[in-house]
């Protein structure tokens, strides 16, 4: 027992663990933040609630009819369907029209009479995404066709214009919402968050730690002793992987309690896959930090590697939305590979057979980067 206590690997592991656990910010960003993010996004995307959309109506007097005006199509639609006229604090007029929908969630339209210039400013600010204009009895819709929200507002409202009875009559289309476990957005999100957590934890917890210790000349002080150099890195990575198990476990526990998420595939396969993902990112982290003593450069390198993966690897939304030519490349990113594998175990019921190849690739990635990093490693 005394031999273990006096062994340098054990003392290095203890030192790293103490350093980690005594830093409240680490606990917040490692455990609290992912849980808050899953809660926020989970609630936002699982409970369908009414949405409010603002629509700009260009030109004067579409909302209020005066004797001098001829009645416009928009005006008659709003008046016939009892859109409520409201006066804002600044004296501006708007009409509100609520279209209830029990299955998909209702839509509350707010129509505002605006000049073209004001409407464009509000569109740029994201306050509205649909602008309507009327010329000779024909309605023109202006919106960004690349914006799915704008497209949806257009489709819903133009349909309403054609069939105003939809406001009071439920849609005849038979919609059966899919909310079985595994098919919800939260089921897609949580495995992604776990994988992103592993990547970020390794990048900051291994890469940044090494660079910071080098900049403080602590690495140099350590290697001036008989410390085995590999022990230093093994201890750092061991503590980080253990911490990743705790962080991911707590996130899963939270998601299980709140959103009833389950693991449909093999748990041992998940553990193996999780370890290989950790090794891949730890290896990359050692490689990234092998040469610099400047934390500013470290920051840049970590962001350079992690940001593209965070955006492209399909953590929050499927990467299949990206152009087809880019998908084979995206699928080769370690984060994509890990997220795809973990998701397949969580929601598709995958086992060892399905994840073995990506697990081996990730393991090899980690070993290759770790070895290259060690070769180039500067201790001072």
């Amino acid at each position, binding site marked *: 027992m005394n031999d273990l206590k*006096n062994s340098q690997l054990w*003392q*290095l592991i203890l030192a790293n663990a103490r350093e980690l656990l005594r830093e409240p910010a680490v606990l917040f960003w490692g455990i609290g933040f992912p849980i808050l993010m899953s809660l926020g996004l989970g609630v936002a995307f699982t409970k369908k609630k009414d949405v409010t959309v603002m629509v700009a109506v260009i030109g004067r007097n579409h909302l209020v009819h005066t004797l001098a005006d001829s009645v416009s199509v928009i005006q008659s639609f709003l008046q016939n369907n009892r859109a409520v006229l409201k006066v804002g604090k600044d004296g501006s007029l708007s009409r509100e029209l609520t279209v209830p929908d029990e299955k998909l969630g209702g839509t509350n339209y707010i129509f505002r009479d605006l000049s073209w210039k004001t409407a464009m400013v509000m569109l740029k600010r994201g306050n509205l995404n649909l602008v309507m204009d009327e010329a000779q009895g024909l309605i023109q819709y202006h919106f960004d066709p690349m914006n799915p929200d704008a497209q949806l507002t257009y489709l819903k409202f133009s349909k309403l214009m054609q069939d105003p009875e939809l406001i009071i009559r439920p849609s005849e289309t038979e919609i059966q919402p899919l909310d079985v476990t595994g098919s919800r957005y939260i089921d897609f999100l949580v495995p992604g968050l776990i994988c992103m957590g592993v990547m970020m934890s390794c990048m900051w917890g291994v890469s940044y730690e090494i660079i910071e210790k080098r900049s403080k000349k602590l690495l*140099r002080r350590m290697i*001036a002793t008989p*410390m085995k150099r590999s022990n230093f890195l093994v201890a750092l990575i061991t503590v980080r992987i253990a911490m990743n198990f705790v962080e991911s476990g707590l996130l899963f526990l939270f998601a299980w309690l709140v959103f009833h998420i389950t693991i449909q595939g093999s748990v041992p396969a998940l553990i193996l896959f999780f370890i290989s993902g950790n090794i891949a990112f730890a290896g990359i982290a050692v490689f990234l930090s092998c040469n610099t003593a400047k934390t500013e450069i470290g920051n840049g390198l970590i962001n350079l590697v992690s940001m593209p993966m965070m955006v492209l690897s399909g953590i929050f939304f499927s990467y299949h939305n990206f152009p087809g030519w880019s998908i084979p490349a995206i699928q080769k990113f370690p984060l994509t590979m890990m997220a795809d594998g973990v998701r397949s175990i969580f929601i598709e019921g995958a086992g060892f057979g399905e994840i073995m190849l990506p697990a081996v690739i990730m393991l090899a990635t980690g070993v290759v980067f770790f070895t290259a990093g060690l070769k180039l490693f500067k201790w001072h």
Partner: protein
Amino acid sequence: MKQEAVIQVKNVHKSFKSVHAVKGINLEILPSQFLALLGPNGAGKTTLVEMIEGIQKPDSGEILITGKPWKGNEKEFRRIIGLSLQETRFIDKLRVFETLRLFASFFSLGAERCEEVMSLVGLEEKRQAYVVNLSGGQRQKLALGVALLNKPKILLLDEPTTGLDPQARREVWMILKKLKDASFTSLILTTHYMEEAEQLCDYIVIMDHGTILKEGTLHDLLGKSSADIEEKEEYRGPPRNLDEVFIELTGRHLNE
């Protein structure tokens, strides 16, 4: 019988890009000798010590530790050398005892030795304090404690009292004096404080611009210096301390 030197520096040169930091230095340190490398910033003291530590390699020349070169003997040397670097920061969130325990483990030493060292450097009361909460003097004592864990045969201290207040400096000196009395360790200490060199060391090497300007015991330096300059027209009597020796050698103060 002449004692065998524990450190031999033979015609060592070292350059960094266009800066010739060390220019052909020769030096010998005997067992239990306390040697001060005295010189202003940029004199080449740290580079010389780093080469003795084995962290830097000389461009030319040779450094022998107990008669052997660094190459092939690194493991053995790491066990007998203790050192304190300029501006080393330990892990902020470790306690004093935990820091000593960590470094002790590198030498396969246990808690008992850590207790001894804490007592030697006077940090018993700070045993549970986090490193981040220590004062400058306490941190320096910790660095010294870490350097002494392995009961080093050779101790290299790079400006161990720079930035400390007079009280803290004196406390560090007391620890080093105890070490000197034990007559087990050879010390190389770099400093730009004359008083430190005068109080602690029995051999002083004055360096500037990568070369040794003068070396010897304090007595030698003061005596020799006065003899050297007696012939000069503006002779104003023998120098009274090392600062005056330095001014006579370089025309400026050591701290400039």
